[in-house]
């Protein structure tokens, strides 16, 4: 019964593979296609976000009042209107707004008059490092665990472990973070709970961030491995006398990882979202915390700059994974019917 179901998978039919190899598109061409597509999407997204921000700020009433804050008097309001060109017609304002965005001119922070983009760039490296560490830690833990779970999913030990993963998937990162602080900072006093104070203070934020997404990655990898282990080429390899470990780590896992391409792209966006909460919990001096504080104080120039940079960063990461996998996985280069 399962055999019949397995043979139905169109992606794994060997006859088709041969036929399709003839229609393989050159990598360079496909890279160019991917790049164009992604850049178009990014432009669309930036356009959407900027329009959204522009009209949101105006929908809420007088943007000058928002920009001036609660303390602004009439004179200040007039000044701000002049300064930001808010006395002109809406369509002109929008044009000016877009023109400035194209030049990446977001204006200066309302809180301390620093250049908004400069503020964002100042915070970017810490956030970037945190995300990279969490991402790497996640892969180091999730891939072997997923492979182990997926290789023999029916055994009791694996079933218990899989239950634990399922439960872990239901625990949001902010709860993990609070529990970690409670355990390692308050009770044991081993790790500092706030700020960036050297290598020890990296452990908990990175763990929290990795815990946000690790269960999901584990589940996908193990599902892919379980599926790959039932494929024909594994049976062939086994018939040729390959040992179980070779089968799992060399043949099945490789295939399962490549199948998880789409997931990795989505994970970047997920990680960036998760890093915002993580940074707030651990008072981490990164981009996410800057975004939250500037959102709370309605510091719009900084919000815009931060959102723009996040969008560009995510797109950069996604495009990079796209292209890397294009080179690694020949199946992606096949012409689609």
């Amino acid at each position, binding site marked *: 019964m399962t055999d019949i*179901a397995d043979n*139905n998978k*169109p992606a794994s039919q060997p006859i088709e593979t041969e036929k399709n190899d003839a229609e393989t598109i050159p990598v360079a061409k496909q890279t160019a296609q991917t790049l164009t*597509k992604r850049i*178009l*999407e990014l432009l*669309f*997204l930036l356009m*959407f*976000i900027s329009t959204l*921000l522009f009209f*949101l700020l105006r*929908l*809420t009433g007088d943007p000058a009042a928002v920009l001036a804050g609660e303390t602004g008097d009439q004179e200040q309001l007039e000044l701000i209107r002049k300064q930001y060109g808010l006395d002109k017609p809406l369509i002109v304002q929008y044009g000016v707004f877009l023109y400035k965005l194209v030049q990446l001119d977001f204006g200066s922070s309302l809180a301390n008059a620093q250049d908004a983009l400069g503020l964002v760039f100042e915070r970017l490296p810490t956030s970037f490092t945190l995300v990279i560490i969490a991402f790497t830690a996640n892969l180091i833990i999730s891939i072997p665990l997923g492979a182990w*779970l*997926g290789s023999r*999913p029916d055994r009791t030990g694996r*079933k218990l472990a*899989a*239950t634990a993963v*399922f*439960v872990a*998937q*239901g*625990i*949001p990162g*902010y*709860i993990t973070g*609070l*529990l970690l602080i*409670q355990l390692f900072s*308050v009770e044991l006093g081993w790790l500092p709970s706030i700020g960036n104070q050297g290598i020890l203070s990296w452990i908990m934020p990175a763990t929290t961030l990795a815990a946000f997404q690790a269960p999901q990655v584990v*589940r*996908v990898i*193990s*599902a892919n491995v*379980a*599926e790959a282990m039932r494929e024909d080429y594994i049976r062939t390899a086994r018939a040729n006398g390959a040992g179980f470990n070779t089968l799992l780590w060399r043949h099945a896992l490789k295939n399962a990882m490549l199948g998880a391409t789409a997931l990795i*792209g*989505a994970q970047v*966006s*997920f990680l*960036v*979202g*998760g890093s*915002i*909460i993580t940074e*707030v*919990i651990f008072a981490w001096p990164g981009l996410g915390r800057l*975004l*939250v504080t500037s*959102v*709370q104080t*309605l510091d719009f120039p900084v*919000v815009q700059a931060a*959102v723009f940079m*996040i*969008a560009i960063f*995510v*797109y950069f990461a996604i495009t990079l994974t796209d292209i890397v996998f294009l080179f690694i996985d020949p199946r992606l280069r096949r012409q689609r019917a």
Partner: protein
Amino acid sequence: MTTATATDKPAPAFRFNKIGTGSLQLDLGLLLFAIVVIALLAQWVVLDESALDGNLRTRLKPMGYISPDGVRHIFGTDQLGRDLLFRVLGGLPWSLGISGVAVVCVAVIGTFIGLIGAWYTGVVRTIVLLGIAAMIAMPFLVLALVVVAVVGRGFWPLSLTMGFIAWTAVSRVIYAESRGLLTREYVLAARLFGVSKWSILIFHVLPGLRPTILVMAAFFFAVLLIIESALSFLGLGAPLNAPSWGNMLSDSRQYLTIAPWMMFAPAGAIVLAVISLNLIGDGFAELSRKRARAVEV
């Protein structure tokens, strides 16, 4: 055999809902059971209805504390002396309500846009697909954060914002499936009979999408619940005094060193709800796979 049934999409072969569940009914039962048990416990534990108001004399008391009036606080009390178990129950309509409204919006908007993209060709489809691909990459929390900051706190602003942002993933799946369904013979027959576009989409395609929509709605319910709590946790979600679970967690963070038990009740509620919803999603997926297999054989 390989015709694209609504449930033929690559679902993870490894499903993990065999811990005594395995079917939708049991999964649903699990959720209801959890809610009912909590509610019953509350009835049984709290003798005094004014416990929700709080009492500053009994503030920050640990789990299981019994006040001088003989009220037992099974999860302890918060910084204003309010019983945490009662507060978590009071937060049920907030947390589940906000994400519930949002998930309805997500399902409706996502399905609508997915169907539009699948039906039309040319420019409309290109724009729909481009929009979905662009929006899906943007961290959802970032957009929600910015929009909520402007439109303000509260039940409706929060739930509608989330609903209007999170539909992209749903519409991508719906798009892919409806394209498959639109190639079926019965759709072709309906078209040849001159049935109108909307009739075909609503009466012929939509029913085929039902299993997918149910599965996605269950998973999105969990995701939106997490996002709602996250926004409240960041101080940009439910109104400050509302007993939303995220708000309670946010409160507990300030008293982490002196009253660590404050996080247990809201954290437990969130985890329980998310796990129940994930189980329900898995249950739906499993059921529809079984049904599809039964049809094929």
